[in-house]
């Protein structure tokens, strides 16, 4: 029990000092998450909207695929992306393995089904009177689609925050594709795993506290968006 208590005190001391390794892990985590979120939203927002807004043959099948991918094991994502970006893989020439962009590709693949499925859900959940109202005000098809997406902005914001929370706390993809290289691709989650395996609880707890703080901030943003969405 004593080592746990010592670990907590050590963690607080480390946080007060904010050593280079901790700062580097925080920086790598945030940077790869921002890369991944940018890619996931750029690729997923429009398909998600189309899936929720339009009716077309095969829509249900696509939705089923997208929903199934929500449960895609992160280790499997890591394995597949690894196969693509390793030196022998089709993207091997870009030397992405064990780099932040390479790690971000895996995290983007992880976030993509969340963005697609939940954006589709947000559009489907929108009151059907919204579209009718826009039509009665004389909106054309393009204006109706754009304003429908705008009307879902709080729900889409929640999708963004949820995906962010999923990516930032992820460990499997980061470990496999980033390689946990100190001062380079070591993120908070991979650092916690490493430090714990070395028995250095203080460092693990310190990073865990920072991660917890970030999760708290993400949830705070989520609560804010929920409140704004309900009030507006």
């Amino acid at each position, binding site marked *: 029990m004593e080592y746990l208590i010592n670990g907590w005190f050590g963690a607080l001391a480390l946080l007060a000092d904010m050593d280079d390794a901790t700062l580097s892990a925080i920086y790598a985590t945030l940077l790869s998450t921002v890369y991944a979120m940018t890619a996931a939203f750029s690729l997923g927002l429009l398909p998600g909207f189309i899936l929720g807004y339009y009716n077309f043959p095969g829509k249900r099948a696509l939705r089923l695929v997208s929903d199934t991918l929500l449960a895609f094991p992160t280790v499997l994502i890591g394995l597949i992306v690894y196969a693509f970006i390793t030196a022998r893989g089709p993207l091997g020439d870009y030397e992405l393995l064990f780099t932040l962009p390479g790690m971000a590709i895996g995290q983007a693949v992880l976030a993509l089904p969340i963005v697609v499925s939940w954006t589709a859900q947000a559009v489907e959940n929108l009151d059907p*009177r*919204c579209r*009718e109202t*826009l*039509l*009665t*005000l*004389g909106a054309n098809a393009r204006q109706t689609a754009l304003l429908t997406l705008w009307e879902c*902005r709080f729900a889409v914001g929640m999708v963004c925050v949820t995906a962010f929370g999923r990516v930032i706390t992820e460990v499997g993809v980061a470990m496999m594709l980033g390689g946990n290289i100190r001062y380079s691709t070591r993120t908070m989650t991979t650092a916690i795993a490493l430090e714990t395996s070395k028995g250095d609880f203080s460092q693990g707890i310190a990073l865990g506290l920072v991660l917890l703080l970030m999760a708290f901030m993400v949830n705070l943003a989520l609560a804010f968006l929920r409140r704004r969405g309900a009030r*507006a």
Partner: protein
Amino acid sequence: MSLVYEARNLEQRYDGRTALARVSLEIERGEAVALTGPNGCGKSTLLRLLAFIERPFAGELIYHGDRTNPRREATLLLQDPYLLRASVFFNVTLGLRLRHCGKDLERIYDSCMRAVGFDDPGSFAARGPNALSGGERQRVALAARLALNPRVLLMDEPTSNVDAASARAIADAVSRYRREGLTVVCSTHDPALINALQAREIRLGRRWDEI
């Protein structure tokens, strides 16, 4: 008087279920028409067809106006209107922005809000829809339609969900615009509204008898 609408044997179905069958009618420009009849007889469906937000399953609907884009001339106020998650000012002026008429928005907002009974439109401009009562929401939605300066105003039970004061304000506003030549078609069970509009009553039957 010239005709605005000519409908011949209009029929609408949803998932194979008939919602409106063999309805024929003519509506003249500047006329007020009240659609009455029991629940489920197709009043709302007929209004949606007249507003061109749905296509009829069968029959013919002729609009004597801008046939390339009739939704720019005929607008529908839904029974339970939806306001976008934005300010009242945005909602009232949205239709004008959609038509790229961005000038004089403040003046139009003010006059339309006053027309539907808001004495101090400025104090409502920044409010969101959830800060409004049911009657206020209905009147804001009506103001948004009047801001478009439509040739035809279609209304689905506009006074059924509002208090007496809001119902009176709605009837007064629409009567005033009607005197200026607006064609009004509304479904209603409210005799006061029918009287205020001096509307010709068209009764739809459960058996969707031809009118």
